[in-house]
Every structure is written in C-alpha cells, then in structure tokens.
C-alpha cells in the first residue's frame, strides 16, 4: 500500500485506531503586518504560522495547505483525494499535530465496524451497568485514512458525526469536541478494493483537495530531508483547541455584504441549471462555500468577504458534489472544468 500512510508516531491500537497526543503549547505572538481592524483574534497572522508549520512537512504545496486551513477555520471537513504516495496522510497528520488538541486516526479497512468509529456501550461487570466507550470520533481532529476502503455501513457512521457533531449510541446522544474536523483521505475510485463514497457523505465534506505530485525541487528536497529525520516528528503544535475556537468564531463574524450573498446564490443556482450537470450543488454547498470564503478572507487579513474569495473556493468546495451528465462525461468534461466555466459566466457585482 502507500508508503506515506505508514505509521510514524504514537501507539497503534488494534483495528488501526491510533491516538496522538502532543505537548500543549500556545504561541500568541502577533504579526505586526496585520492590516485588518483590531479584533481579538488575528486570523491572518495565526493562520500564517499554521501554514508555515505545516509547510515544513508538506513542501511545495502552499495552496493545498492553505485550503486545509480554510476548512479548519470554516469548521468543515476535508477530503484529500489522490493516488497513493503523494502525501495525503502526511498533510492530515501535519494539520492534526499543529493543533494542540486530541487527535485520532482511523485506518479504514474493509472489516472496520461502525462502533469502532462512534463508540460502543459495554457491560461493566463491576458496576453492573453499561458503560459507553467513546469511539475514534471523540477528538478535535479525526484523520480518517483511506476512507473509501471501509464498507459503506462504516462510512455512514461518520455521517451524523460530521454534520451534527454528535454521536447517538443506544439512544443516548454524546456531544463531540469543538473544534471537530474530519480529515479524510481517499484513493481515486478506479483503484482496486475501494467503495465509492456515497453522495450524501461527499456532500458533508466542505472541500475536496487533490495533492498532486510535488514539483522537482520539492521532491528533491524531500528525498534529502527524509533521509535523516522525519519532519513530522519535529512538528510542534502552534495553537490549542480553545484558540482555534476563537479563530473560528472570529471568522464567523466576518462581514458579508448583500451582493456577495447574491453572488453565492447565483453561483449555486447556476450549477443546478447547467446542462452539463445531473446533480447541482445543494443549499448546504452554498452555506459551506460562503463559510469557506469567509475563512479565505480572514486568512487574507480582510474584514469583509470578496467575490474573489468565493471564486477561489468554488472549485474545491463545489466540484466533488456535482454529478456530470453522461453526455458531459463522455465529452471528457470534468466537474472542475464545469465550475470554472460557471465562474466565467456568472456576473460579479462591482466588477465587470
């Protein structure tokens, strides 16, 4: 299988659930270059620190790192899809490590059971009562590795967790930690031994990103660096969970003007009208697109959201939710291309 998913740190429990813990550390240094009005959370500066830290591990992929941060700040879930060996799991783990919170990793395998994900009530002989043993989702960051290798039943177990941030077992509902982020990796669907992710579940991921091969320089550097020490082990947390909550709250308060809302709605509507698409974007997609745009704007240090932010997020947020018509698929169009075309067609208020 993939060399990148190979375990690098922490304990490995059975059925692949690993718990990673790091020493608490909180860096509060403020960057003087901030241009935004005074708020209690300097998203741009702290985001830059995160990006820098992750970038030390995932080299040559600033866009992908940035997108991961956007999803984190948008309180969403990230789906990393690519062929084996390009660093999907590394990204997921690097993101997890930079945040000082509970991090769990689930290696999805065909025999993984839903209760391994959500948790199970076991009978305690001593207290003569059922006791709830929390599953792998009870953490701030859940790395769901090779999610499409598990059976659909287990995949669906993630559904409730991801959207509602709670787990219901035997009629009892347990709240999940905040922030809660699922970083899932998956191999392309054509690969052997995969179960395609259902549409409903794909829709729950805020964004899908594809790693892509590193460029020549990055690959050379990687070969040189890896030989001595794994950068992942050198990574220390930059923010704690409370701080991330503050940042997420700050992002949620970013100003969104009326024309921008309209632009998002026009864009989402356009996907539903497009003759190339069998399934357009859901209202949830619009919601998450706006959230992601907010996070993008905050990372850029702005106190308001621009259509540019929406455009930057449109492909990663929308493309994996869309289903092409057979004609469009035969014409070798893909969802990214369709979204890009829509961006060029939907009018932007205040531009041209």
């Amino acid at each position, binding site marked *: 299988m993939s060399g990148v998913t190979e375990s690098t740190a922490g304990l490995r429990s059975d059925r692949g659930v690993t718990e990673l813990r790091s020493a608490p550390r909180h860096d509060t240094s403020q960057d003087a270059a901030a241009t935004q009005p005074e708020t209690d959370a300097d998203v741009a500066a702290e985001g830059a620190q995160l990006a820098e830290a992750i970038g030390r591990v995932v080299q040559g992929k600033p866009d992908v790192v940035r997108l991961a941060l956007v999803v984190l700040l948008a309180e969403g879930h990230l789906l990393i899809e690519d062929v084996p060996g390009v660093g999907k799991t590394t990204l997921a783990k690097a993101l997890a490590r930079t945040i000082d919170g509970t991090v769990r990793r689930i290696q999805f395998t065909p025999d993984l059971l839903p209760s391994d994900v959500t948790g199970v009530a076991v009978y305690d002989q001593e207290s003569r009562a059922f006791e709830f043993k929390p599953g792998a989702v009870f953490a701030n960051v859940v790395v769901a590795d090779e999610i499409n290798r598990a059976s659909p039943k287990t995949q669906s177990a993630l559904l409730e967790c991801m959207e509602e941030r709670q787990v219901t077992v035997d009629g009892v509902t347990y709240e999940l930690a905040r922030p809660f982020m699922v970083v899932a990796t998956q191999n392309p669907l054509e690969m052997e031994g995969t179960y395609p992710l259902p549409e409903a579940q794909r829709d729950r991921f805020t964004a899908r990103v594809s790693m892509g091969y590193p460029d020549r320089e990055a690959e050379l550097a990687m070969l040189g660096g890896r030989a001595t020490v794994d950068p992942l082990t050198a990574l220390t947390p930059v923010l704690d969970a409370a701080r991330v909550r503050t940042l997420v709250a700050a992002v949620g308060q970013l100003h969104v*003007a009326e024309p921008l809302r309209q632009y998002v709605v026009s864009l989402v509507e356009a996907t539903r009208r*497009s003759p190339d698409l069998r399934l357009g974007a859901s209202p949830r997609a619009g919601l998450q697109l706006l959230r992601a745009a907010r996070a993008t704007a905050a990372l850029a240090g702005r*106190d308001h959201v621009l259509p540019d932010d929406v455009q930057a997020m449109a492909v990663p947020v929308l493309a994996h939710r869309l289903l092409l018509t057979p004609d469009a698929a035969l014409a070798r169009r893909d969802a990214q291309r369709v979204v890009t075309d829509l961006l060029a067609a939907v*009018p*932007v*208020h*205040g531009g*041209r």
Partner: protein
Amino acid sequence: MSGQVDELPRATRGGPGTGIAVAVAVLLGALALDPVFVARTWLLPVTMVVAAVGLGGVALRALLDRLVDDAEDDGPWWSGPARLAVPLGQVALVLVVLTVVFAPERAWAGVLPTLSSLTDLAGLLGDGTAEIREQATPALPLTGLVALTTVFVALIALAVDLLAVPARQPALGGLGLLVLYCVPVSTVTGEVALISFAAPAAGFAVLLWADQRARLVGSGRGGSGSPMGTGTLPALRTALVALVAGLLLPAFVPTLAEGSLAAGWGGAGTGSGVGTSLDPVAEMAGQLSLPEPIDLLAVDASVADPGYLRSVSLDEYSGDVGWRMSNLDGQASIAADGPLAPLLDGQSRREVTARVTVLAHDDRFLPLFDSPLSVQVLGSEDESWRFDPAARTVFGRDVTTGGLSYRSTSQQPQPSAAELTAAPQDPGDPMVERYTALPELDPSVVALSDQLTDPAQSPYERVRAVLGLFTDPANGFTYSLSTSQGTTGDDLADFLRLKRGYCEQYAGAMAVLVRAAGVPARVVLGYTPGQVGEDGDRVVTTDDAHAWVEVWFAGLGWIPFDPTPIAADRAVALPWAPRTDEADTSTPDPFTPGGAAPLPAPPAAELDRDDQYVPPLAPQAAPEEQLRPWLLGTAGTLVVLALAALPFAVRRRQRALRLADGQPGALWEELLATTEDLAVELPGRSTARQLAQQLAQRLAATDPAAVAAVQALARAQERSVYGPPAARSGPDPALTEALATVRRALLRSSSRGERVRAALWPASTLATATRWAAARAPRRPRPA
C-alpha cells in the same frame, strides 16, 4: 484566478469577406441615386470604381499579409507603414478606372493616367459641376455629371472601406451610406423613391452582417452550420427591426412639411381684417407647398373644359415686394341682386355652371370660374361672403371655405383673335392708368419690352409678342421649381436673364412686360381645373395651384393669358393665346413637351407635377432663398456632425458626472469605460481585483505609479461594495487623482489610432446603451 479565465479572442482585422461586403454595401447605397438620373448609364462606371476599391483593398491586404507573414513573427518594421499603402493603392486603382472610362484618349495605353489625361479628367469634372448647376432632377446622365458621381461614390467607398476593414467600425461606415441616401432626398422634389431608402438600408445590413460574421468566426464562437450562416439570423432580425422602426417612428413624430418653413416666414403677421392690404398668398401657402398633393376641391362643371378656377388677383406691382393684392372692397354681398361681374355686351361668351364641393381647401377666397355672375354658398350665410368687383374676387368675411359647397354661374369670355385685335388702345381709360402702373424697372427689362413690342401695334399684338417670349422654345425658357421664389425687380431680372423659373415668375414677368408695353395686366392666382375623377367630378389638388395673367382689353374686359409651360393634361386651352410649343404637338405628351428643346430637356417629371404656386415672400427673404442650398447643406452637415459627435458628448458628460460623484463605484465605472473606449482587452466576467491585476500587468512596463493607482481604485471599489458599512468611505480626492493617473497611463499605452477612436467614438457609450437595451429585452434562458 485570472489565470483560469480565458483570454477573449483577439479582434482581428476584417477579413476579405468584410472588404467584399463593403463593396456590395456601397453599391447598394449607390442605388439610392437611381431616382436622381433619367437613365441608368451612370451605374456601370460607379460599379467599376466600387469594385476597384473593394476588391483592390482585399487583394492588397492579402498581398500585404502574405509579405508580413513570410517575414519575422512580429512582422518587419515596415508592416505598420505598409498598411497605409492599401488606401493609396485603392486610390490609384480608382484613378485607373476613371481614366479608362472617362479619359482614355491621352492616357498611356488608354489605361495608365498621364498628366494630360488627368487634365482631361479634371476638365470633365469641371463640366460636371456646371451640369449639376444646370440640371434639375431627374438629370440626364451627361458625361461630366457621371464622372463627378463616380468620383463621389468612389470617395465614399474608400471611406467606408477604411472604416469597416482596418478600423473595424462598420457602424460608422453607415454614415457613408447615409450621405448617399441624402443625395436623392435633397435633390429630388416630392417623395423619395423606395429604392433610395431600401437600398442603402440593405447595404448597411450587409455591412453589419459581414462584420458580425467575421467576429463570430474569428472567435471560434460560430454557433451552428457553415461560417456563412453564422450570425445571419441575428443580423437579419436586427435589420428588420431597425427598418420597421425607421418606417413607423416618423409617422408619430411631427415634422415640417417640405418648404413650409419658408412659407411660414411669409405667412407671419397676416392681418385679420378683410379690406386691409393682406397677402392671400401666405394663407394658401401652407396647403400649397406640401410634398404630396392633397385633394382640395371636387368640381362638377357643366362643360368639359371649364377653364381656370380663379381665387384672387394681384394687381399692384412694386420693385421691392413684387406682385401683391390691393385692398379689397367688401361692401357688396354675393347675395345682392343682379349679376356679380357681367361681361360687357356684345362679346363672345359661354355660360358655365358648376357645383364645387370643398375637400381640403380652406381659404378666405372662393375659387370660381371666370367671370362669376352668381354664387350660392350652401349651408352658410351668403352675407358672410363679399364680392369685390374690381378684383372679381369672392371672399369671406370671418369665414373660410372649409367644408363648404357652393354653386356658381359664370360667363367665360371667348374672344376671337379678331375681336382682340380690334380692341382699341385708349390711354385715357382709368383702367389703363390703374393697371399699367409700374415702378422704376430694371433697364434690362425695359429694353426687353421695347425690343419685343412696338407702340404702334394693337394691344393684343403686343401681348402676343410678350407671350411668345415665354412660349417660344427658341427663347430657351426652362421650367424649374428649384429657383428662388418671388417676383421682385431683381427676381424678374434674374428670371429673364437665366430663363429658369415656374408659374409665379412666368406670370409675374409677363404681367410686368405687358404693363411695360402699356397694356393693363395683372397676375391671377388660382387653380387649373384638375383631373376628372372616377365619379365624373373634377378633383383639384394642391398640385393644380397656378398663377397666370389677365390682360384688360377695352370693350372685352379681363382676358386670361398663360405663359407657363404646364403639362398638357392640366393646361387650359386659350385659343386667343396659343402656346407655340403646343402648336407643334398634335398629341400632347406630358413627358416630351416641346419636342425639340434646345437645352437639356426640361425634366419631364417635373412638368407633370408642375406648378405649385409658391407665394411671394417678404423681400428680405429673397437673399436667404438663394442661399438655401448652402444653408441646407450646412445644416445637414452640422446635423450629421452633431449625430456623429453625440457619443463623444454623452461620454464626456458621463465622465464629468462620475468624477463629480467621486464615489469609488463611480470612479470604477469610469475606469472600466475608459478601458472599453481604448479597446483594452479584459476578461468578460471578473471581479474588481482581477481586472486591476490585468490592468496592472499591462501598465507595469510603462508606468509603475499607475499600477498602485489602479490597485487602490480596485480596493476602494471592493470595499465600497463588499466592505462593512462602517468602513465605507465617501468621495476621496486621492482616488480621483489615482483615476487620472491610470487614465493617463492607459492612454500612453494605447496606439494613436485607439486614442483617437476612444475620443471620437467611445465604445463604452454604445456598449452601455446595448447593455441597457439587453437588460430590458426578454431573453431566452441560455445555457451557461
């Protein structure tokens, strides 16, 4: 994201298709000249030069493209200047065609122009200008005139070709077609033939279609089917809508009838009371000077040839005013007992009764057959209608003829030549004294009168001699409506010298000459009796308005004479005053009057239409009238210039308003409009930031200061649209300054041609209008 936005297809120069379309369009436009000429011999040389311009341009450009392509990628240094060679080559081709057609004798091999052949050509063009002056429309296609027309069309073809092909502004090329359309409009009297309108319109559609097609094919956005079919349907639709709008809209817009502007001046200040000196002419002018005849009267007469319908006589002549009416005596009512104006006893006469139904006529003077004995106005107070025995005019006191019917009985004098010859000369007669009164005349007029007449002759012989002056073709009088109005001393001298005029001048001049010969005379206004309609009634139209002469003979009274050459079907036979030209033709053909005219034949179509009598104007109007073509031409040019300058003015105004506004949004709009004017290529749908980035890339090389300025503008625009309300800033002088910086930089980075085009023909105004219309037009859902 700018990298993901497709570059718009680069606007290319018009291909060969556009060049050929220009030739077709100009040729169609030239068809507008068809009604200007009698025959179509002008069409061949015009077609040849247009083809020379169009095909020559295509060939030269293709040659140039090949030469440039063979060279480096960017084209050699001379490729820019070489573009100038194309129009020069076209001019040379036009010269060759002109030489071959018009001046091959002294040309080299009959083809290549030499200095002497060019001199011949120039002489021919000089002849052409003279022929323009001499001929009225429709004109004979004489060589000079055709040469001049050919040069004219060639120039227009060159201009349209330049505008449509290298400048890619085929809409402006339409101005050239408009000029062609203006030629028949300004020269042909009356209605303009349909072809004059339809042909240039079709040409314009062809021009737009070709350009549209070139753009669509060039951008690879050709919808369906062959390249020929691309964009044809929208072009057709646009052309149809424009045509229908052009035809329908004028119906709802009030316009001035032809000539009524001048008539309006003459009619101003007409007195209201009867019995004062007033100008009857001005009141009639409004209905007489319509471009299209209007039915005025329906006449049911007891005889087949009822003679002239007389309205009023002009019996006073002065050198500075011309012929006018003296005061009317309004004492006698037509209801009074006894005949109104009986003829003298012992005179040949015939009785004519008539019933006249007024259609559109509306005047204070009743048109009556001469000489009225009794008039019965039906359905109106006879008391309101008065009779002046001296003028033999029935006129209304505070009433007009509108909607009336009346019956009249008249006695028409039918004197024989013998009776007239026998009429004595009696200098002591008060009539002679009153109706021979003349002011100091132009010496040439007096000399002419002396030369024509001899005091020893009988009055009738003298009158015949004067009449012969006008009716004998040998004397070369030509009928023309396009001369100045009026019968003042100067006007008459001009008429007698230039021998071009219409009924007013013919009658005025004859009356003056007859008076100068000592015979009492006056000018009479009225109508020829019209054409027999379907129901047997005669219908008198505005085209039947006429002026003629009455001469007083002792013992016989007033006898009509008509010096004007009018169409045979309208003419009234006056056996005592035969027209020399009529005598020759046994079967009068209105289209060939006079058979052997010595000069270029008087345009027949005009004769047919004849003789609107146009009122004498106030004297100060006369010089203006002579300037009229110039004034009209100048006004037309100004209107065209104003129309062409309209986008410029609109754009200027828009710019000033936006700068005064100073809000980031307004400044941003202005920046976008500037880029559009300068044809800066920008992605179609993009955010302010992306546009700023594109502009920054363009300006980075030339003007780094402008890069910061354009980004500041974009930031301000973003903030004003998307920022939190608290952060929005008002007008900021620094931003206005930034806009000025960017504008300067953009202008510097554009070619001179783009700058000129942006100033004269700002594309943004047109695009704004188009977008405005598109936003309001119903629209089909369109796949994105």
